[in-house]
């Protein structure tokens, strides 16, 4: 299969990297070759960040070339212009506007809600998403995450 490119972007400290970790873990568990690229180091102080996940039969560069992202998930509206060039023509852009934010159990769970939305584009087993979310989060967030994920899917 062709390599699939999924890019997560936003501001440091808003769960962007965590969301990309979860997605990468899901496709890893499905047996694909997976690569994930991100630059961290100074991002805790609110600067722009992005994380690329690529999967398929064989992935070469870990970085998504501009103009080839199948999905671009942006967690802050003002970060869309910064990342727009990544998207391929006809690629899918997901933003917080795709979520009913009033129903979000906790604003920190936006990343999980966005993953819920993203999950509707793939036919990956739901219980895999759920088990990865449980594995990569502390138990005290499991309940909120389950709600947020469901909200994203609705």
């Amino acid at each position, binding site marked *: 299969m062709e390599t699939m490119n999924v890019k997560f972007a936003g501001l440091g400290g808003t769960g962007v990297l965590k969301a990309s970790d979860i997605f990468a873990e899901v496709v890893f568990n499905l047996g694909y070759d997976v690569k994930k690229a991100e*630059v961290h180091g100074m991002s805790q102080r609110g*600067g*722009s960040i992005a994380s690329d996940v690529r999967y398929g039969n064989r992935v070469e560069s870990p970085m998504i070339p501009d103009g080839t992202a199948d999905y671009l998930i942006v967690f802050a509206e003002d970060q869309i212009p910064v990342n727009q060039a990544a998207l391929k023509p006809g690629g899918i852009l997901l933003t917080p506007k795709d979520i009913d934010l009033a129903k979000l159990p906790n604003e920190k769970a936006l990343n999980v809600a966005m993953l819920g939305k993203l999950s509707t584009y793939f036919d990956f087993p739901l219980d895999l998403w759920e088990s990865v979310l449980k594995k990569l989060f502390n138990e005290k967030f499991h309940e909120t995450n389950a709600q947020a994920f469901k909200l994203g899917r609705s």
Partner: protein
Amino acid sequence: MLSFDPNASRMLISGNEALALSMLHCKVQLATGYPGTPSTEILENFSEFGGKAQWAPNEKVAAEVALGAAFAAARSVVTMKHVGLNVASDVLYTATYSGVSGGMVWIVADDPGQASSQNEQDTRNHAKAAVCPMFEPSDSQDAYEMLKTAFEVSEKFQIPVILRMTTRVCHSKSIVRPTGGLEALTPKFVRDIASRVMVPGYSKPAARRLRKKMEDLEVWNVQNHESLVVEGSNDLGIITSGICFHHAREAAPEASILKLGMTYPLPADVIRDFVKDKKRVVVIEENDPWLAENIRALGISVEAKYDPVFRFGELDVNRVKRILAGEKTPDPEAVKGKPPALCQGCPHQSSFAVFKELDCIVAGDIGCYTLAALPPYSAMDMMIDMGASIGMGLGLRHVLPPEEARRVVSVIGDSTFVHSGITGLVEMAYNRPATGHVVVIVDNSITAMTGQQEHPGTGRKLDHSPTYKLDYTEIAKATGIDNVVEVNPVRDREAFKTVLREALSKNELSLIVAKSPCILALKSILAWEKANKEAAAKQEK
């Protein structure tokens, strides 16, 4: 916290995690270093696996500790970022002469694109200048394997070896299938004065021995096929190393590719053989045209990237396509993202607001607080390398007219002070400027910039267990500083301002420790302290 099971047979891990795992499997007996993006997590992960990992005050000391272990026939690792090798280069340039008895690998992480560094220097120049064998992994599996090979080379040829990482290889995740490590070494001391005491009488023959080792290593490099050839069309051959291998394969799937694993010394015969039947050969590499120049020096003709454009920044698939097309136009302008800024409530905000209010000339240093050079603060006037704030401040003081000299203050973080600020204090008391001088340690009780590492001033080791806590005020007194004051720049902001104003007004030497914790680290610091107290109480019982 580990996010993967180190006992799994297939894992999705970063290059840094892969190195830590390989260190465990290679039974590394001592790993030391100083934090620096993108190398920091290697030691942290190794410690979590149960390996013996420790932070040193700086890279030079770390390298010396690791060298001592390797003289004792142990297997050791020292980690640092590229600029750390400048600090430790004095060790490297003669440790290649002496050689080692065990195995010693220097993991040095370059930062093409300067994601988090003050320059974009290329470690491959150091490897050649110091005559140190070097490997360049391209992904996590490669990092895992090459560390093992680096030890095999180090132990067979009795020489330190550099494993050159780059930001993308350190921080990208890819799949690793562990393949097993090495038998443990048994440390012992065997006297060998002529090899390890580098006085001219012994080091002159050592220099010749070293060159002979490099000749043997080149033969080894050719015979062991540390290079990988991807067969493709004869119309285009690509010579590359590290992460660029993957960019190149994607950018030119039809091309033949020679991926060099050990890039110093180069396997000349392998390269000659590769280029022989190719119509066109292009070298794909980041930063300096290092491979291209060294391959040309072998008398082999290759094309290099167009330097004025492609020397700078990271490469990616699209840039590699542009290089292969011979393009010379500037890269398309990217939309600028939001730069990082000091956290809301960061203690540095308060300190730097005061420097600004007092119209100080700030000789600055490296850490989170360097962000105070950017608007809205614009309150740092210079920053070059770790520890430089004190020396640069003294230089300004020596030559500026007195009324300007009295505005100069050297501002340095706590971790940076321990790294290389102490000798600055010695200089300050030894060559005292006529107007005196003022140093402020902006002490947030952690190495914040690189992600909250311990250092000798926190009183806790890499794994957060307790140890002796360095006392900055005692050091300052012992070096001959006239006035030493500790003050909280957040809680007692006005007091901090008064102390600083007074210190600037007199012709004396002052050290002000502006102490207030990093708010991002505070919760962890309290938890570590609590755990250590409880452990101590338990032991007393």
